[in-house]
C-alpha cells in the first residue's frame, strides 16, 4: 500500500462559483475528502441594520442562478414576520415564476454542467462517445445549444411576469407586483406549450407523463428516448449508480407552498421513511469553518469571519446539521420526500440517482407549471400589502433547484437585527462538524476511483457535479 498522497483539485468549473476539493488517496481510491468553499462575501452582515424590505433587493443577488429562490425565501421570511401571507393567486404566480427558474436550472445543469464531462478524451472509444460529443461537447454541443434556446424562450414568462431574470423584485411578501391579464395568461401557456414540445422531443424523447410513470430503477434504465436515453446508456456503461452514493438522509422544506398544499411535500427522509422536519433542530456548526462563534440555530446564529483563517478550519462554509446529522438536499431529496416511487427506489443512490431525480423533477415541474398557468384567474388580486412590525421574526423555508433554502430574519426597531441563510449547497458541501462527521459530498467522495496520473479525477468531477453545487450561495 502506498502512502496516502494528497490531491488538491481546482479550479472547479461548470458549478456555479468555484470550489476546491482535497483528496487523500490510497490504492487508487479516495479515502478522505475535504471540501473548501473558497469565496466569502458576507451578505448576512450587509443586511444588518437595513430596512427589512431591502432583503428583497439584496438577497436575490447572492446568486445569479437561483436568484428567484432567494427572493422567494426572503419574501416568505418577511411574510412570516408580518403574519400576512400572499393572496392565493399571488402565491400561485410566485410558484410559477419560481418553477420557471428551477426548471431552467435543471435543464442547464444536465446539458451544460454535468454531461460535458462524458466528452472527455478519457472516454474516447466507448460506444456512445461520438454521440456524447455531438450532443454535449462544451460550448458547441447540439444539446447545449438547444437547451440555451429553450431556456431563453421559457424565460419569456419571467420577462412578462417578473420584469427580468435574474434579480427581480416581483416576489413580495403579499404576492407578486404584476397582475396578469387574459393575453398574459395565453402567452404563458404558449411558452409552456413550446417548452413541453422541446422537452418531449430533445430531452426525454417521449411523453413527460410516461417518464413520470417510471417506478423502478429497472424501468428507468429501460428508457431509451432522447438525451435522457443517452445519459442512461452512459450511466449503465460507467456504473454511475455505484459512484458517489449518499447516506440515505434527505431533507426537503417542501416546494411551492400554496393554500391547497405543496407542489412537492416537505419532510425528512431517514432510515427508509418520511417524517416531519423539526425546524428547531437545525443548527450551524462553525467548528471547521473560518467563522467565529459556536454552533447555533439560525435565529441565534452569527456570521463573523475568522480573518486569521485558522489552521484547524478549511472552508468559509459552516456545517448545518438537522438533529445533529448531515442531510442531503436537492431534486432527488425532494422527489424521495414527496414519495415518488422511482425516487424512493433510488434513495441512497449516487450520481445516477441524483441526475435521474433531477430529470424526474424537470418533467414533473413542467406538469405543475401547466396546471398553475391553467388556473390563473385574470380577475384576481395578486398582491396585498402589510406594514412590517417594529419587532418580529420569521423564517422563509423554500426549495431552490438545488435543495432546501432557509432565511431566518429578526427585526428589531424596524430594522434587520439579524439575517441568517442556509443554502442548499451549504448542506451538501458542508465541512466536518465538531464531532468530525463529514458533510454529504465529503462522504460521497470516499471510494471514488482515481486512475494513475489523474490530477483532476473524472469520477470526482462526476460526483461533485451530480450535486449541482451552487458555490456562490453556499457561503453567500
Amino acid at each position, binding site marked *: 500500500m502506498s502512502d496516502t498522497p494528497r490531491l488538491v483539485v481546482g479550479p472547479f468549473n461548470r458549478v456555479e462559483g468555484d470550489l476546491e476539493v482535497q483528496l487523500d488517496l490510497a490504492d487508487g481510491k479516495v479515502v478522505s475528502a475535504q471540501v473548501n468553499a473558497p469565496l466569502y462575501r458576507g451578505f448576512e*452582515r450587509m443586511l444588518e441594520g437595513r430596512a427589512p424590505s431591502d432583503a428583497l433587493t439584496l438577497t436575490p443577488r447572492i446568486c445569479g442562478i437561483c436568484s428567484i429562490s432567494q427572493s422567494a425565501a426572503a419574501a416568505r421570511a418577511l411574510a412570516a414576520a408580518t403574519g400576512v401571507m400572499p393572496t392565493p393567486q399571488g402565491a400561485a404566480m410566485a410558484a410559477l415564476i419560481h418553477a420557471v427558474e428551477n426548471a431552467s436550472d435543471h435543464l442547464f445543469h444536465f446539458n451544460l454542467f454535468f454531461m460535458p464531462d462524458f466528452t472527455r478524451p478519457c472516454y474516447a472509444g466507448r460506444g456512445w462517445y461520438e454521440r456524447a460529443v455531438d450532443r454535449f461537447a462544451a460550448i458547441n454541443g447540439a444539446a447545449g445549444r438547444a437547451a440555451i434556446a429553450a431556456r431563453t424562450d421559457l424565460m419569456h414568462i419571467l420577462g412578462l411576469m417578473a420584469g427580468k431574470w435574474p434579480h427581480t423584485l416581483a416576489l413580495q411578501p403579499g404576492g407578486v407586483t404584476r397582475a396578469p391579464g387574459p393575453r398574459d395568461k395565453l402567452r404563458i401557456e404558449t411558452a409552456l406549450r413550446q417548452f413541453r414540445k422541446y422537452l418531449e422531443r430533445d430531452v426525454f424523447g417521449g411523453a413527460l407523463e410516461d417518464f413520470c410513470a417510471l417506478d423502478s430503477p429497472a424501468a428507468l434504465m429501460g428508457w431509451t428516448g432522447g438525451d435522457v436515453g443517452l445519459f442512461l446508456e452512459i450511466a449503465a456503461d460507467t456504473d454511475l449508480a455505484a459512484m458517489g452514493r449518499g447516506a440515505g438522509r434527505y431533507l426537503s422544506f417542501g416546494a411551492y407552498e400554496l393554500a391547497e398544499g405543496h407542489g412537492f411535500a416537505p419532510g425528512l427522509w431517514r432510515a427508509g421513511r418520511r417524517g416531519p422536519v423539526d425546524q428547531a433542530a437545525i443548527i450551524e456548526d462553525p467548528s471547521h469553518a473560518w467563522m467565529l462563534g459556536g454552533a447555533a440555530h439560525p435565529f441565534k446564529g452569527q456570521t463573523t469571519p475568522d480573518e486569521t483563517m485558522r489552521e484547524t478550519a478549511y472552508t468559509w462554509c459552516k456545517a448545518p446539521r438537522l438533529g445533529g446529522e448531515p442531510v442531503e438536499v436537492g431534486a432527488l431529496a425532494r422527489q424521495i420526500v414527496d414519495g415518488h416511487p422511482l425516487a424512493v427506489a433510488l434513495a441512497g443512490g449516487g450520481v445516477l440517482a441524483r441526475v435521474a431525480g433531477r430529470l424526474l423533477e424537470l418533467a414533473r415541474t413542467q406538469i405543475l407549471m401547466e396546471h398553475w398557468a391553467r388556473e390563473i384567474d385574470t380577475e384576481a388580486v395578486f398582491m396585498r400589502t402589510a406594514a412590517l412590525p417594529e419587532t418580529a421574526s420569521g423564517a422563509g423555508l423554500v426549495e431552490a433547484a438545488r435543495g432546501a433554502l432557509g432565511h431566518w430574519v429578526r427585526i428589531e426597531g424596524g430594522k434587520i437585527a439579524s439575517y441568517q441563510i442556509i443554502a442548499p449547497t451549504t448542506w451538501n458541501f458542508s465541512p466536518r462538524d465538531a464531532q468530525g462527521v463529514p458533510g454529504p459530498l465529503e462522504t460521497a467522495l470516499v471510494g471514488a476511483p482515481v486512475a494513475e496520473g489523474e490530477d*483532476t479525477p473524472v469520477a470526482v468531477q462526476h460526483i461533485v457535479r451530480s450535486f449541482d453545487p451552487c458555490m*456562490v450561495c453556499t457561503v453567500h
Partner: protein
Amino acid sequence: MNILWLQAAGCGGCTMSALCAEAPDFLETLSGAGLEFLWHPALSLQSGAEVAALLAAVERGETPLDILAVEGAIARGPLGTGRFQMVSGTGRSMLDWVRALAPMAQHVVGIGTCATYGGVTSAGGNPSDAVGLSYDGAHPGGVLSADFRARAGLPVVNVSGCPTHPGWVAETLMLIAAGRLAEKDLDPLGRPLFYAQHLIHHGCPKNEYYEYKASAVTLSDHGCMMEHLGCVGTQAVGDCNIRPWNGEGSCTRGGYPCIACTAPEFEEPGHPFTETPKVAGIPVGLPSDMPKAWFMALASLSKAATPERLAKNAVAPRVAVTPTIRKPKGHR
C-alpha cells in the same frame, strides 16, 4: 479574438443573463463576431489542473490574451490578503490573479456592477473589502490603478448593470472585436455609451403617469413609482425600456422600481430601495438635467391637471379606466 472570463466575488448572474441573448443566442453571436472563449467558468470543459495551467500560460505571455472579462467584484480582505476569494487549486487569490492577468490582456472588460464599481458585493459595511476593477464605487482606482490602460490602449470597459442586459455584454464584446470601441464611446464612468446614453425613463410604459405625477402608492399599482416607491428611472442610465429583457420585460414593466443598478454605489441608496426619501413631503432627487424650480413648478401644475383616468389607474393593479376614444371627423 479569445476571451478569458473570470468569476470573481459576485453571483454569476451576468453570465446567466448573457445566456438569455436572442436572435441569435449568446454563443452564436460571439462566434459570428470572431470571438471564442479561451475559458469560461460556466461553459468550458477544462477543469482543475488544466485551468491552472491555462492561467499560468497567459500570465507568462505564452498564450496571447485578447479580452479579459471579469464578472464579480474583487475581494481584498481579510486584512488586504485577498483570501476571501482564493482561486482554488492555485493557492493564489483572485485579487492576485486579476492583477497578474490584466496587464497581459489587449482589453479588460468589467461585466456587471460588481466588477466595475464593487456593486452589491461591497454593500453594507463591505464585509469582504471588495472593489471594482478600476473603480471603488464612484472613485477612480480599484484593484487596478485609475490610469490603468489595457495593452490596446483603452481603460477598463465598464459594462455595468445588476445583472447586465445580454445585449450590453454581447454588443460591447462585438464592438471590441470589430475595433469599433474607442475611449470616446465610453461615458465618464467607463460605460459604453450605446446603452449608457439612454435613461431607464426612455420608453418606460409609465411615462404618461410620470407626466401627470399620477403616482403608485404600493408595488403592483400601475402609476409612476418615482414619488413614493424609490424609482430613479429618470436618473439611471440604460436602455432597459427601449429594448426589454427576457422578451418584453423591464423592472418598471414588472411593477417594481428602477434602482439604478447600472450606477456606482447603487447598493447604498441611503434609504430603503423601494421607498422614495422625502423632505417635508417632497421627494428628494430630480430627473436628470432638470432644474429644481422648473421641476417643482411643472410637477404641481401637472398634478393639478391629472386626468381622472390616470388618477384612478395609478393606484390600481390593472387599467381601470380606458382612454376615451375620439371619433374621427371623417366624411363617411
